[in-house]
């Protein structure tokens, strides 16, 4: 920061202690605060200027002291001044704000990913290792964390004020936000988009742990199956492995290593295979047909929850070879061939 550390200390830490300013708990927070203080400064200056003009003129030219008004038409110079200076200041703010925006919404490539599903009226966080949290989020400090979020019903918005990050959580598509926490502690999570009855109850806590504590936490809170493992189970039980078996003559494209690659579609366009693409391809397959394949994939809209989709996406992301796909295919086939136990419904 270019301003005195003592002043910064006062502005941020002391105000925070008096419950007048949020903590700066992420790497981006000081940048946001810097822009905020600049805006506060120009607002105060502007207000003081207007105040000085208004009160100054009112007192100097009050009727007792200035009984006859002198007509003044205007001044092009003044008009230009108070057009250009505010415009310049606002444009500076525009550029600064745009840079900050791109910083906040463009994650670094090494960010670890956590999925968040919002629904009326709770937050579900799903770590790739299989840890599931409700209205809570445990993250390590000092590591960039990306949240991939989606809503199961209406618009919500995921906000961590102390990190200065917030993003709308939308039904029907993923939205992302990232942060790197700097200080251990617990901080508020709020839902900030009005979503019905319990909107103000859709709150939680993000707990920032030191890297060691975070390791400990992941060991202790896993549910046994990672998201990818659950995805593998779904991949087999929903029959995806039948077409996407990885065989040469398979009806569906090979999914090993497809994540992150550029795919040629039948309609001629080229797409980057990311989380959103995978989710969309499962729900709207006819618009995402890989070149060289027939549009025969059925849609799974309505048959699979957002959690299930996340599991599948994680699974496909992790898929490097089709070995286990083939294995589960055999299991599925033998599962279908096996006779049912008498007296038990299939």
């Amino acid at each position, binding site marked *: 920061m270019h301003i005195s550390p003592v002043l910064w200390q006062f502005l941020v830490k002391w105000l925070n202690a008096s*419950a007048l300013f*949020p903590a700066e708990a992420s790497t981006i927070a000081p940048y*946001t605060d810097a822009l*905020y203080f600049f*805006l506060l400064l120009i*607002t105060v200056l*502007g*207000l003081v200027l*207007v105040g000085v*003009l*208004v009160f100054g*003129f*009112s007192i100097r*030219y*009050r*009727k007792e002291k*200035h*009984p006859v*008004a*002198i*007509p*003044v038409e*205007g001044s092009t110079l*003044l*008009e230009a001044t108070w057009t250009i200076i505010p*415009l310049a200041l*606002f444009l500076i*703010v525009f550029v*600064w704000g*745009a840079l*900050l*925006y*791109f*910083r*906040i919404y463009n994650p670094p490539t090494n960010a670890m990913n956590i999925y968040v599903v919002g629904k009326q009226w709770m937050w579900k966080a799903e770590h790739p290792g299989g840890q599931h949290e409700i209205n809570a989020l445990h993250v390590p400090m000092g590591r960039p964390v990306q949240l991939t979020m989606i809503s199961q*019903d*209406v*618009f919500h918005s995921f*906000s961590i*004020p*102390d990190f*200065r*990050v917030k*993003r*709308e959580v*939308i039904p*029907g*598509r993923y*939205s992302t936000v990232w942060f790197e926490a700097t200080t251990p502690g617990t901080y*508020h999570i*709020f*839902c*900030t*988009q*009005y979503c*019905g*009855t319990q*909107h*103000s109850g859709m709150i939680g806590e993000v707990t920032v742990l030191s890297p060691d504590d975070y390791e400990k936490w992941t060991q202790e809170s896993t549910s046994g199956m990672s998201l990818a493992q659950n995805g593998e189970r779904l991949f087999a039980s929903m029959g995806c492995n039948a077409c996407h078996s990885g065989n040469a003559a398979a009806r569906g494209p090979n999914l090993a290593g497809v994540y992150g690659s550029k795919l040629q579609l039948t309609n001629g366009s080229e797409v980057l295979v990311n989380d959103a693409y995978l989710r969309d391809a499962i729900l709207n397959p006819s618009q995402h047909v890989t070149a060289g394949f027939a549009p025969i994939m059925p849609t799974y809209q*309505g048959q699979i929850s957002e959690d299930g989709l996340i599991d599948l996406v994680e699974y496909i992301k992790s898929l490097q070879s089709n070995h286990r796909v083939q294995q589960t295919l055999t299991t599925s086939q033998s599962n279908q061939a096996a006779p049912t136990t008498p007296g038990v419904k299939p």
Partner: protein
Amino acid sequence: MSATHTIINLPDQRTATLPKRNYINAEDGLLSWLLTGDHKRIAILYLISITFFFFIGGAFAGLIRLELLTPQPDLVASDTYNKFFSMHGIIMIFLFLVPSVPATLGNFLMPIMLGAKDLAFPKINLLSWYLYMIGGIFTLAALVLGGVDTGWTFTTPLSTHYLNTHVVTTATAIFVAGFSSIFTGLNFIVTIHRMRAPGMTWFRMPLFVWSHYAASILMVLGTPVLAISIVLVALERTIGIGVFDPTKGGDPLLFQHLFWFYSHPAVYIMILPGMGVISEVISTFSRKRVFGYTAVAFSSVAIALFGFFVWAHHMFIMGVSNYSALVFSLLTMLVAVPSAIKIFNWAFTLQKGSITFETPMLYAFGFLGLFTIGGMTGVFLGALGMDIHLTETYFIVAHFHFVMVGGMLMAFLAGIHFWWPKMTGRMYPESLSKLAAVTTFIGFNLTFLPQFILGYLGMPRRYHAYPPEFQVLNVLSTAGATVLGVGYMLPLLYLGWSLKYGAIAGNNPWQATGLEWQIQSPPLTENFIETPIVDHEAYDYEWLAHKTEQEVTTVG
């Protein structure tokens, strides 16, 4: 009688009476009011109805602040609280702020300011009022039947598929009220284009008219898009047309675009007429022409024009593309500039003037300060990265209350007090009104300044309960709201009192220059005995002085 500290010039109260014939006593009976074509009577009808809805909306505000005294959701159930802020927003925006200045002061004054006998379409003017009343009655019906809890923004898919309240009734109410607004704007535009008196060129019109012209353009072009958005929401709720439903292939973000395409210009519909009032008041109480008349006139039109191109700044975090976020942020910065130009022009109107501090001027000063803060905090929100932290929090709530209440409502009160003598023939009690103005100003700041701090701390808007560390600021805010409420009650009382007991005002108690001040108070139904021929600029105090001299020498 010229006192040195005031410009009020009343006729001798011992002999003064209201003019024998005026628009109020021209015809008797309720029907003569309900079927009138007289723009002045329609303005009074509007004044009564919007005041009624203002206090209902205000009651909801009081209930909201009462609940927020404590962090727990302990006063009412969550659903009820959600209805409080929804009804507060819907009533205040659609039934109070949008029609406030245009439908009362605009209706009353515009024809007179232009030298015309009435607006272009008196029957459509009356229809506007009936549409407004129907919209209001539907809203009351929705209220009585249990209220609506969509928020005033009707966000889909919440409003279309996830709520069981009276959404369609309220949507219908807003649809109808929207047409009231469209017809008012249409009437104003045609009147300004076609019915100016001989000699009244565009650049001789008062700035009040310019602001209403700009606001009317917004009303006419923007409101229909709100209408169609509301219709689509109603269709989705009733017969299942799924244009916004993601499960049917629709896109809920489409609703956001359509809704904000109107609702952003709507805020300029609300503020521009208020800015017109401020121009009139500041010039009168400085005794000189508004500084930079042309700049102020063009700024009004610029605000209207730019105002159409910034709507997505309400959607920066909703998944709009980076490219469009950049474009809308840049345009938002541009739309802020004309407002800044106006503030400085008004401030410099004071220079070399002869300034007095009657109640309308006090409200105007309040406007200058509070609108500066409100407008500048808009720049905070227009900055992309800043908006991420501030959006959907109490910072937004504070911002829009500063511009709409600290700005618009103060301007409305300034205008009501300024033209009260013209509309009623009576003066209000000056000391009491000054007290109300100051009370309002103090109460307002106490209510809404803490909310900026709460916003930066991260307190979300529309929250029924909140973390305990936010309580002190909320208590301050509620305390301010109480003071603010008192400040708003006072005018209701003393303005009502003045109708019977106020001093007789005479034609021109403020010694102002507009055409409306050259006719009797209250005016005749036909406004002018003969059509005025305009041969002077707006705010021409030399012309006024000359005319006054002539009257003194010829009458004597």
